[in-house]
C-alpha cells in the first residue's frame, strides 16, 4: 500500500469526488486524546489500591516500630487503651474467625443448594422471580442486619436455648454469625450458579443419556465440573464475612475475648477498627496506629482470599468459555 506514489493517490481521490479522501494520513489527535483520558479513568482504580496500601502500611510500619510484630501476632491480650496497653491481636482474630465460621456454616451449603436449585431444577419462570428476590438479601444495608440480629435473633436464641433467658449474652457471635451467613447466601449462590451455567449442556445430556436422573447429574456431573467456580464463590463469601463490619459492631460485642464459645461476646478486627475510629482518637497516638495495624492484617487476609477466588474463576472460564 505504501508503495503507491502520492500522485496516484491524488488521482484516485479526485475520482472519488472528495479530494484527499483516501489520503487521510493525518492522525486524529482527538482519537488519541480520548484513549489517554479513558486509560487515566481506568488507572483510578489502580491509584485506589495504591492509596489503600499506603494508608494502611505506612502507619502500620510506625506501629511495628513501637510494638514487636511477634507480640502483635501471638499475644493473647488486646487492651490498647489501658494504662498498661497490651497489643496481642489473637483475641480479635478469634472473634473474626469464629463469626466467619458460623457465617460459612450457614452460607456455603445454603448458597450452594440455592445455586443447584436455580441452575438445575428451577423453571425459567421460577428463576426469573426467585433470583432477584434472593439478591435483595445482598442489597439490605448491613446496619439493618445488625439491628435485626441484636433485637430479634438474640432474644429468639435466648428463648429457645436453655439457660433461663441469659444464654447467649446480649452481644454474641452466634446471632451475628447466623445473620451474616444469611446475608452472604446470595453472593455464594449467584457466583456458584454462574459457574454451573458455564458447564456445557453436552455433559448433562451425556449423563442423562446414560440413565442418570437429575440429582445424579447435579451432584456427580455439574457440581464437580463447576468445582473451581464454586470454590471461588466460597472464597469470596468467606472474604465478605471476614470484612463485614456493621453486623458485628451492633450485635457481636465490643470487648475482645479469647474464648471459642459462640454464645459469648467477641470483638472482631473490623469491629475494633470501627469502634476505635468512631471514638475520635488523636492522630499519632499508639491507639490511633493500632487501627492501621489491624486494618493491614484484615486487608492481607481478604486479599489472599480474593486472589484465590479470582484465580479459580479464571480457571473455569478458560476451561469452558
Amino acid at each position: 500500500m505504501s508503495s503507491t506514489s502520492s500522485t496516484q493517490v491524488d488521482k484516485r481521490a479526485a475520482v472519488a469526488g472528495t479530494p484527499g479522501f483516501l489520503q487521510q494520513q493525518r492522525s486524529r489527535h482527538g482519537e488519541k486524546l480520548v484513549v489517554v483520558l479513558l486509560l487515566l479513568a481506568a488507572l483510578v482504580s489502580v491509584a485506589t489500591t495504591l492509596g489503600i496500601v499506603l494508608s494502611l502500611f505506612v502507619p502500620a510500619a510506625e506501629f511495628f516500630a513501637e510494638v514487636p510484630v511477634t507480640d502483635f501476632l501471638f499475644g493473647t491480650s488486646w487492651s490498647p487503651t489501658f494504662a498498661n496497653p497490651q497489643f496481642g491481636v489473637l483475641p480479635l482474630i478469634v472473634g473474626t474467625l469464629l463469626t466467619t465460621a458460623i457465617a460459612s456454616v450457614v452460607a456455603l451449603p445454603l448458597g450452594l443448594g440455592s445455586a443447584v436449585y436455580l441452575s438445575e431444577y428451577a423453571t425459567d419462570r421460577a428463576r426469573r422471580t426467585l433470583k432477584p428476590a434472593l439478591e435483595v438479601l445482598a442489597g439490605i444495608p448491613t446496619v439493618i442486619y445488625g439491628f435485626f440480629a441484636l433485637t430479634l435473633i438474640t432474644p429468639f436464641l435466648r428463648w429457645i436455648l436453655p439457660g433461663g433467658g441469659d444464654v447467649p449474652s446480649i452481644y454474641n457471635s452466634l446471632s451475628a454469625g447466623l445473620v451474616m451467613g444469611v446475608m452472604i447466601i446470595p453472593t455464594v449462590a449467584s457466583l456458584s450458579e454462574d459457574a454451573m451455567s458455564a458447564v456445557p449442556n453436552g455433559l448433562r445430556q451425556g449423563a442423562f443419556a446414560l440413565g442418570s436422573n437429575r440429582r445424579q447429574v447435579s451432584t456427580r456431573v455439574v457440581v464437580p465440573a463447576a468445582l473451581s467456580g464454586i470454590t471461588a464463590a466460597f472464597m469470596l463469601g468467606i472474604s465478605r464475612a471476614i470484612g463485614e463490619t456493621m453486623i458485628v459492631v451492633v450485635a457481636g460485642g465490643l470487648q475482645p475475648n479469647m474464648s471459642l464459645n459462640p454464645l459469648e461476646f467477641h470483638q472482631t478486627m473490623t469491629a475494633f477498627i470501627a469502634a476505635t475510629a468512631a471514638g475520635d482518637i488523636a492522630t499519632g497516638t499508639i491507639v490511633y496506629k493500632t487501627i492501621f495495624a489491624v486494618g493491614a492484617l484484615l486487608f492481607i487476609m481478604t486479599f489472599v482470599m480474593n486472589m484465590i477466588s479470582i484465580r479459580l474463576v479464571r480457571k473455569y472460564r478458560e476451561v469452558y468459555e
Partner: protein
Amino acid sequence: MTITSPPSKSPTASSAPLLKTTGEPLRERAFKWMLWFCMAVGLITLVVLLTYVVIKGWSRLDARLITNMPSSVLPETAGAQSAITGTLWLMVFTALWSLPIGIMAAIYLEEYGNPNRWYNRAIEINLLNLAAVPSIVFGILGLVFISRGMGFGPTILTGSLTLALLVLPVVVISSREAIRAVPQSIRAGSLALGATRWQTIYRQVLPAAIPGIATGAILALSRAIGEAAPLLMLGVSFVRFNPDGLMSNFTALPIQIYSWTTEARPEYADLAAAASVVLLIILLSMNSVAIYIRNKTQRRW
C-alpha cells in the same frame, strides 16, 4: 439374555432400577426438598426481616420522621430529616464522581485495552480484588487521604468521594458487561461506513449499552447509600441540620440507624426500625427502577 426374561431375575435390572420405578424415588424427592429448603431459608429470612422492621417501626412511621431533626434526648420528637437529606446529597455526589470515571474505565477495558498486555490484565485483576475489599478499608483510605490528608473533614465531599471509590469497581464491572453485550456487527457496520473508533463507540456502542449501564449504576449507588462502616471511619456522626453544600458536615440514614441502635432506651429501637424502613423504601424503589429498566429495554440482538 433374552428380552422376555422378567426384570426381577435379570442381574442387570438391579443396577438399573430406574426402568421399573413408577414416580420419583424417595432419594430424588428428598434431594429436591433439600434444595427448596436452601432457597427457603434465605427468602423466609428476608420476609421475616422486612415484616419485623415494619412492625417494630410502625408506631414511629409518621410525619415526625421526615419533618423533625434527630435528638438523643427526646425520642418522641426525634426525626431523621437531616439523615434523609444527607443520604440524598451523598447519593447525588457519589454518582457524579463514580459514574463518568467508571464508564470511561469500562470503555477503555472493553474497547481499547488489549487483554493480553500485562498492564491491562493487572488493571482487571486489581478491579476484581477492589470489588471485594472490605468497605471499612475504604473508610481508612478516606480518613487518611481525604478527610485528614486533604483536610476536608467529615463533610459531604469526603463522604461522597470515599463512597465513589468504594462503588467504582462495581460500576466498571457492570458497565463492561453492558458494553460487551453490544454485538460486534454493530461496531463492524459503523466502522465500515467510515466512522472512527471513538465515533463508533460514542454514537453506536454507548447508546446501545446505556440501559445496562444504568441498571448497574443504580445497583452500585444503592450499595453506596446503605454503607455505614466507611462513614463511621470518617467520623460522620449525627447532626441536627441539613447539608447546604459540599463542605457541610452531615449525617446519613445508616449512621443514624446505628446511633439509635446503640441507645439504651427502647423508644430508640423503634426509631431505628422506622429509619430502617425509610432506607429500605429508598433502596427497594431504586432496585425496582433498575429491574424495570432491565426488563423494559432488554433487547435481543
